[in-house]
């Protein structure tokens, strides 16, 4: 039952993401809709995503809590997306360089995080295999 609710919320989150425009820059915000409108929608997105996350994660068994931490850590390295924009857009060189350092740090987590999560999950077996 809860999983149905969680899935519905997930869909709602995605729908709202779509409605609000997945990527709004400050320029977009000032031309289309007022800043406050955009940010109200962002608060909706945050609340729904947090609630969805809460519902799903309370159902993750303690068995998988360590892979869960590794996985959410890899997922939150999505800040890579923001780092990429800062490193590559038209800004002073020192800001681009800060962006590049951020890209490096976030990439470490994306790559390392997903690899190690998979390595861990591979170990969880029901019956022992041969060898």
């Amino acid at each position, binding site marked *: 039952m809860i999983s149905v609710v969680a899935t519905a919320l*997930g869909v709602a*989150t*995605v729908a709202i993401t*779509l409605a609000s425009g*997945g*990527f709004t820059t400050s320029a977009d915000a000032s031309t289309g809709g007022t*800043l*406050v409108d955009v*940010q109200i929608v*962002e608060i909706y*997105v*945050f609340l729904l*995503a*947090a609630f*969805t996350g*809460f519902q*799903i*994660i309370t159902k993750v*068994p*303690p*068995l998988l*809590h*360590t892979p*869960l*931490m590794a*996985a*959410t*850590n*890899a*997922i*939150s*390295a*999505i*800040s*890579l997306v*923001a780092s990429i924009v*800062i*490193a*590559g*857009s038209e*800004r002073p060189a020192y800001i681009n360089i800060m*962006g*590049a350092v*951020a890209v*490096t*740090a*976030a990439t*470490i*987590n*994306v*790559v390392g*995080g*997903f*690899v*190690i999560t*998979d*390595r861990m999950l591979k*170990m969880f077996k*029901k019956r*022992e295999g041969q060898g």
Partner: protein
Amino acid sequence: MNPAIGALFVQVAYIAASAAFILGLRGLTKPDTARRGMRLAAMGMLLAIIGTLLNHEIISYELIIVGLIIGTAIGLPLGLLVPMTAMPQRIAISLMFGAFAVTLVGIAEFLHYRDVPGGPGVVRMVALGLETLFGALTITGSFVAFGKLQGFISGRPIIFPGQKLINAAVFIAAITLLIILIATASNGPAAGGDNGVLLFGLMTVLALAIGVTLVLPIGGADMPVVVSLLNSYAGLAASAAGFAIGNNILIVAGALDGASGFVLSILMSKAMNRSFANVLFGAFGGEKVAASAKSAEGLTTHSISAEDAAMRIGYARNVIIIPGYGMAVAQAQHAVRELAELVEKRGGRVRFAVHPVAGRMPGHMNVLLAEANVPYDHLFDLDEINEEFRACDVALVIGANDVTNPAAKNDPSSPIYGMPILNVQDAEQVIVVKRGMATGFAGIENELFYLKKTSMLFGDAKSVLSQVVTEVKGL
């Protein structure tokens, strides 16, 4: 590419990635769907990165490519080579990397807005400030946690007089700076925010200091709570970054991470019988009294040899093994698995009872046992197995202490009174593998060790258990 179509593609990529993250985490609710789920999440990440690279704002790719290559060069070995026994440290250091990236984004965005007429505005300034605050304190907090787990910073709580007062003062100072920044710098330098950079820098430094003072007073056994809490902070920082730059995928992913850390913190604090407020303000670990509630005077333990232990375990029909941090330290998980297999071959039943806070991070014991090839349907949570101790011939405690202490149930004066424990004392006989008679982290005597039914098997868990395995083979 037509910018409008490009922007649409970016949005579609981000929406697909959000869905992939949510479905991926849903996969983690069952062991057999977990791997597939995480692959989906990884695909979502790849899609989000590709989408971003097509963003029309990006004019040069050199720095991006350099960052991606260096990051992959460091991340790949970190993912492939770090041993499972080093997993708590590895989680802590990755929290630091994540927070570092988010904080840099926050600082870079703040500096960028110095050149934008009108500045970031109040709402974005709040987001930028919170992003940098949470990010910076997570950087140093995770680093100290990493140091404690790796062993180059003492695992004992580091406490000095007036610590709480200083912590509170630093915290209030950082918040005050943020409020001043919101009042002065949100409309850009023209609106009298000339000191903005200085104030912002000062706030970041204070946040870095908070991270240190938050984690230093916390002892090793409380690490599961700390790591969960830092995980939550890292997520909140990423979400704040999403608010700051108006990017929903950051908000979604950060909220998922924040929720995950939050849920784990609650679970861990429940398992330690601490209130959530206590955990939230990082006040745990500091108030512990090192005084023994019960003196061990006049009580004696009963020590046995590996041979003796092998006799009891080898002929047992129903064995429950209780692993603790001691097993991880001794890296005894493979010897434990071998022993379990032997008992099963001899017709006995072996199950593992895993306390939520056993070890140094949520799920620590499960990962170690899985690495040693113990099938996961042999691993049981506290609630699932606690009634089963009554029917068990031998309870084998390996390097666990406080989580088995009956004082948590029957001694209201004990500092751990009320903490849920494994009912090891209900077993017909108990064998405790332990290095020596040192008390557990809480600094209290464990009555379990002095019971008539309890036998102590002293020594390093790995070597002692290897001896037991050899002896059982010879039965």
